[in-house]
């Protein structure tokens, strides 16, 4: 299996998904070799990792800002970050694309050593590696798509190189698994994916523990204030600007509500300015990128989690929120809305409906309770083991 990142060294959903999938496949009895482009210290008991950096036994990783070095960084941003010295490239290429290609060069040899029955690769970053591995071994390739360039850019300003890699991967793959039917349809429509060789493997979720709330949020709650949470990359794809507009509308009719916009991304500064321009800056917190326990703290502090994405292949954060018993409002333009019944939904552009629904959750304890209780129950039934079953069936179909 070719991936790009793995917790705790992850920048977002792809790493979490790979972890969930890898663990569940091992539980289901698959002999899994997980390949990553560079060596990390990963505290994972049951998965054998293979690292694609040449000095992998001796090379010690210097921690780097994973918000830059991430599957979500555009190629342009990566080059800029390298030139500003934010990323030490070491022996690697100094563009993200060069890094992707270098990964691909190692993959053939790794695959031959590993001698797999099936090659399973995640997203465009692993495509050159996947194609090389298939060429070296002649084994069937399952390409797993968690996000597309089309989602990342909202269809505008698509990076041609990335798009071409995605297309090449889809063409080379024996089977393409999409993270949702929403994404599968994008692949069919915009990438010429043959529906015959497509499938869907919805994401799962692991359980969460109770955490103590951050003080500032606990204070708000003690005063009877309400908290609405956004957690994700602050980029055009995630629709945070629509949430800001909905927040303005909500605050017109109730001023007890605070918005926590957690995450980082290229729209961060723009969003801070937008909050100020809308006159709601005192109601919006930007805690930056959070990880680990702090994520659960945020979920648990919130009365409502909102995912206003413009185009979301899956969207694992609403499942995490529900694991923490926090009700969710999700955009209809998301794959996760295919697996969740017990959620509020709205079109991302329908900020009035969003505000209307936010108000209802904050106003009526009965709605909060039912969404939280039923959503939590529902999410416990969505497990990575089901994902592993879908993937296992796909393996059987191509071998």
């Amino acid at each position, binding site marked *: 299996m070719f991936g790009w990142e793995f917790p705790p060294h992850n920048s977002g959903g792809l790493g979490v998904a790979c972890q969930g999938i890898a663990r569940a496949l091992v539980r289901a009895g698959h002999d899994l070799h997980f390949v990553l482009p560079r060596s990390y210290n990963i505290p994972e008991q049951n998965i054998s990792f293979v690292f694609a950096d040449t000095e992998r036994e001796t090379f010690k990783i210097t921690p780097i800002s994973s918000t830059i070095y991430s599957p979500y960084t555009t190629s342009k941003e990566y080059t800029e970050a390298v030139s500003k010295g934010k990323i030490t490239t070491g022996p690697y290429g100094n563009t993200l694309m060069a890094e992707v290609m270098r990964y691909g060069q190692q993959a053939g040899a790794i695959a031959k050593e590993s001698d797999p029955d099936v090659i399973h690769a995640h997203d465009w970053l692993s495509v050159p590696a996947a194609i090389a591995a298939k060429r070296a071994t002649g084994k069937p390739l399952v390409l797993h798509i968690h996000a597309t360039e089309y989602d990342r850019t909202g269809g505008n300003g698509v990076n041609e190189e990335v798009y071409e890699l995605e297309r090449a991967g889809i063409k080379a793959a024996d089977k393409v698994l999409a993270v949702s039917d929403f994404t599968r349809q994008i692949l069919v429509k915009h990438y010429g994916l043959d529906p015959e060789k497509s499938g869907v493997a919805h994401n799962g979720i692991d359980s969460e523990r109770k955490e103590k709330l951050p003080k500032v949020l606990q204070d708000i709650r003690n005063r009877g204030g309400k908290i609405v949470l956004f957690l994700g990359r602050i980029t055009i794809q995630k629709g945070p600007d629509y949430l800001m507009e909905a927040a303005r*509308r909500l605050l*017109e*009719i109730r001023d007890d509500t605070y918005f926590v916009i957690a995450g980082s991304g290229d729209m961060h500064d723009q969003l801070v300015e937008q909050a100020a321009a809308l006159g709601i800056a005192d109601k919006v917190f930007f805690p930056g990128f959070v990880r680990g326990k702090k994520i659960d703290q945020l979920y648990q502090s919130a009365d409502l989690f909102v995912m206003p994405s413009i185009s979301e292949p899956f969207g694992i954060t609403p499942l995490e929120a529900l694991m923490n018993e926090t009700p969710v409002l999700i955009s209809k333009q998301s794959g996760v809305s295919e697996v969740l*019944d*017990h*959620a*509020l*939904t709205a079109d991302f552009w329908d900020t*009035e*409906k969003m*505000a*209307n*629904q936010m*108000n*209802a959750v904050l*106003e*009526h*304890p*009965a*709605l909060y*309770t*039912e*969404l939280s209780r*039923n959503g939590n129950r529902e999410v416990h039934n969505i497990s990575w083991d089901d994902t592993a079953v879908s993937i296992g069936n796909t393996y059987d179909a191509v071998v």
Partner: protein
Amino acid sequence: MATVCFYFQVHQPYRLRNFSIFDTCNNDSVNTRDYFNDASDTAHNNQKVMQKVARKSYLPTNQALLDLLETHPEFRVSFSFSGVVLEQFAEFAPEVLESFQALVATGQVEVLSETYHHSLAFFYDRDEFRSQVEEHGNLVYDLFGITPRVFRNTELAYNNELGKWADDHGYAGVLAEGWDPVLEWRSPNFLYQPPGVKNTRLLLKNYKLSDDIAFRFSDKKWKGWPLTAEKFTDWINDHNADRDTSGKLINLFIDYETFGEHQWEDTGIFDFLRSLPGVLLRHPDNNFMTPSEVIENHDVHDEVDIPNTITWADSERDLSAWLGNEMQQSAVKSLYELGPAVEKTNDSNIMRDWKRLQTSDHLYYMCTKWSADGDVHAYFNPYESPYEAFVNYMNILGDLRERCTQESTFQKQSTLEPVEA
């Protein structure tokens, strides 16, 4: 001698339009608020829904029944119409009302009593309940020239108290579900009476045979499929045999929209309906009766004690489809708490809206029990989720509360500052 007693429930709620919390802030339109008029292409549009159901169900079924009543003078059916469906006939589909009037005019059709607004008022506000039953009785008299003698409560919701209430108010009978856990060793195929009453009788639905038509008719996995008039008649005829001691009264209580809506025309439901009375009457011991005729002609077999409320809904046969979760509890509580404030305004529009919000369908849309009954819940439901149903309902209820406040403030001001004539 096996008696078949057909009873059909005819009801459509005034569905609510999409109403945002921001609509409440729009004070310009406060006096012309209309929660029930939605011109969209969705199932919120009452006119559209009514005209569709009229075309697919009410008109063709009424025509079939009219023909049957003419062909077989022994054929009998009974109906109960909610007041809100009768209003919508008049407003959106007058030809449907005329065709029901033609049915009643045959003299072979009985019309039953219920609450005007198809509400659960019996369990929350007894005065409001009585007023809705009276209002319904007046409308039925105006439209059909009949004073109903037999009562059926919304969704067949029944308990001993309702039996007592019906007895106190001079009803000859009440309809209820023939649910085994309540009946224990008893069969639903007899006439019963509630404990401790003088005159009122209890007719219990034979849910097995009723649901064979209403729910299972087109189910290809059901062992009875395909259901023909001959097969169904065989099941009824079994009750004529001397060895059968389970009773000779078969109450078939069915949603009228079964014909053409819940079971589409292409399932053969109309052919079944058109042939059933003739085939049943081939056996000399079979006959048809209306509920009042049943009460006059059948002996009371026993008392049935039903302390806890039963309904005809879902596998639970209780009120949990309407009141089972916290949203429903909270909505119904807010609704009836608003009663006194509504009364105080003395405003007919506010009163009408509050009454229409009592229609049980609004609560049904908020149901979160997803089970085998989910299909039934989805039918005619304008909402994408029970949560949206709750949000919309509470927005409208909040708006109505706001109007009550404004109206009473206005009244106070009027008394303080009399306007010059």
